[in-house]
């Protein structure tokens, strides 16, 4: 068996957008997710992080590259043969308002995955399992027959989490699960996700644009820019010693919750994110990077190991000094 739970090799996801053009949402991503870890995936809107999350569990069929689940190549499996793997990979969505059917009550919502995969033999067994799941995510059992509109955003997200863990999956892709929530409630959900990981030995791919949320939860963090990985490193190391210039700008741009530490002089990133339809030659970041030289414009940097980081930058060593 492989040491990785999920691995992608040169995974790409393009979308045709008419006139013979293609939008390169994810390009040649090679990524390993280890059993039991929380891998954070960060980047700005449009960088391809959600598309990557969906492609990794084949909610989108990749247009290039290969996917391995516990060492087995699952890229080209037919839907019927892929089904046992589906049970192992679940997803939690961002918007707890849009992702729950308003006409289903809590029991029906949480029972849905159990029915799809024929897990419970009797209705009584099903109800017992649903109640068990509700308890696990901190929802009182008396809410069993309530409907989504009767819940707050945080409680709805708990329903979404109960659905995701219903089948005892190995991997959960969490796509911005707390972005729609207020801070006071956000932290309750983050604590719950962490506790569930420890108790049920889950593995998460945690997608977020919020760097402080990822810092709390993730064991390793992967930074994306324009469909490609620019840096992967253990969380503490990435936040303390970012190597890729984009990672540095991203970390510097987070407003610190301290009026005494105002970033008046910090250099800000200028310009705009290039279009994923016409990706710049060479390093995709070179049009905004203050350190870019001729080499960066012509040659695309590969992801290479530097200490405990993997970084896609020609000049990473120079910038370290």
């Amino acid at each position: 068996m492989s040491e990785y739970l999920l691995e992608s090799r040169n995974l790409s996801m393009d979308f045709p957008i008419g006139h013979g053009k293609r939008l390169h949402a994810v390009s040649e991503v090679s990524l390993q997710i280890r059993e039991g870890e929380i891998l954070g995936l960060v980047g700005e809107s449009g960088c391809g992080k959600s598309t990557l999350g969906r492609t990794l569990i084949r909610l989108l069929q990749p247009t290039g590259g290969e996917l391995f689940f516990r060492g087995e190549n699952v890229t080209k499996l037919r839907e019927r043969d892929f089904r046992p793997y589906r049970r192992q990979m679940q997803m939690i969505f961002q918007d707890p308002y849009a992702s729950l059917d308003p006409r289903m009550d809590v029991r029906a919502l949480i029972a849905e995955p159990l029915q799809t995969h024929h897990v419970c033999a009797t209705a009584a067994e099903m109800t017992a399992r649903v109640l068990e799941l509700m308890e696990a995510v901190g929802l009182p059992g008396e809410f069993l027959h309530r409907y989504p509109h009767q819940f707050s955003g945080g409680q709805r997200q708990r329903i979404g989490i109960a659905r995701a863990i219903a089948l005892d999956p190995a991997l959960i892709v969490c796509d911005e699960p707390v972005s729609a929530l207020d801070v006071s409630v956000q932290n309750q959900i983050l604590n719950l996700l962490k506790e569930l990981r420890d108790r049920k030995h889950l593995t998460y791919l945690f997608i977020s644009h919020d760097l402080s949320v990822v810092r709390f939860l993730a064991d390793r963090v992967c930074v994306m820019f324009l469909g490609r990985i620019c840096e992967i490193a253990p969380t503490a190391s990435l936040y303390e010693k970012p190597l890729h210039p984009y990672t540095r700008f991203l970390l510097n741009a987070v407003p610190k919750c301290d009026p005494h530490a105002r970033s008046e002089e910090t250099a800000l990133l200028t310009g705009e994110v290039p279009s994923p339809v016409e990706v710049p030659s060479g390093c995709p970041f070179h049009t905004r990077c203050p350190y870019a030289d001729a080499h960066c414009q012509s040659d695309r940097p590969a992801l290479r190991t530097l200490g405990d980081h993997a970084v896609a930058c020609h000049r990473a060593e120079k910038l370290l000094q």
Partner: protein
Amino acid sequence: MEEKNVLEIRQLRTSFFTRRGEIRAVDDVSLDVREGAITGIVGESGCGKSMTARSILRLLKYPGRLIGGEVLLDGRDLTKLTEKEMSAVRGGEISMIFQEPMTSLNPVMRVGRQVEEALRLHRRLSAREAREQAVAMLAAVGIAEPEKRARCYPHELSGGMRQRVMIAMAMICKPRLLIADEPTTALDVTVQAQILRLMKELRDNGTSILLISHDLGVIAQVCDYVYVMYAGRIVEHAEVCELFDHPTHPYTRGLLGAVSSLESGSNTLQTIPGVVPNLLHLPAGCAFSLRCGECRKGCAEHLPALRACAPGHEVRCHRIGEVNA
């Protein structure tokens, strides 16, 4: 130095009259916006911060209604003005920018023309003068190639660029006050940092700003003075460093604790138990009593008044003095 207020809100009340009862979105809010400073209102969704801003400009939609209080702009009460007089205030003396620039811009009108619009409404200028001023304003808010961009439609611009256009529209008539309602919430962090820097430049050039945000980081970085709202009421206000150094209301302390436990990398995050209360069913007393760890007998029955706990620092809590941080 004597502090002058551009805007003074006194005991403002705004309610929504629904079939299920009266919702007090803004309940007895008094607030000062100082000249040449950034005053912030912070709170979670539904706390009434946006409704306070809309009440200032009387931009309330049915069934919302302003039912009491005064809004004094340089001493003139805006709640007493006729609708026609109010139109001259909106966009002229007070202007506002919103969270989502795409929905606030007209998609079928070139952005240059949208920036000129306020000028032609409020000042009698020739088309050429208006065009020149609009282009100069676009340049002033940091848009490269302003002549070219002025001829673009909103969909041709990025989110950060659109928000700059919104700010240009708001600033074109040199308003006394700029109200910014979550101006960076829809933007990425690197673009947010650019827009926040622009807001500080506007402030340094003498613009008074009322900034509404749910993000304590944004508030800490740009505001000079902060009001914290909860369930339609102001629960605490102070100068920014005083507020972050000595948060006193249990809600403010909970919010700051929640954010700083994220930043500090602790193992379990600090939370505020429970959920934001339904505004239809608020307790008679302190609205935070349902979630408050310091709640004692009487808190839920009697409404605490705003009381000073330090110079310029007021808190709405029965237990100040006892539970000081």
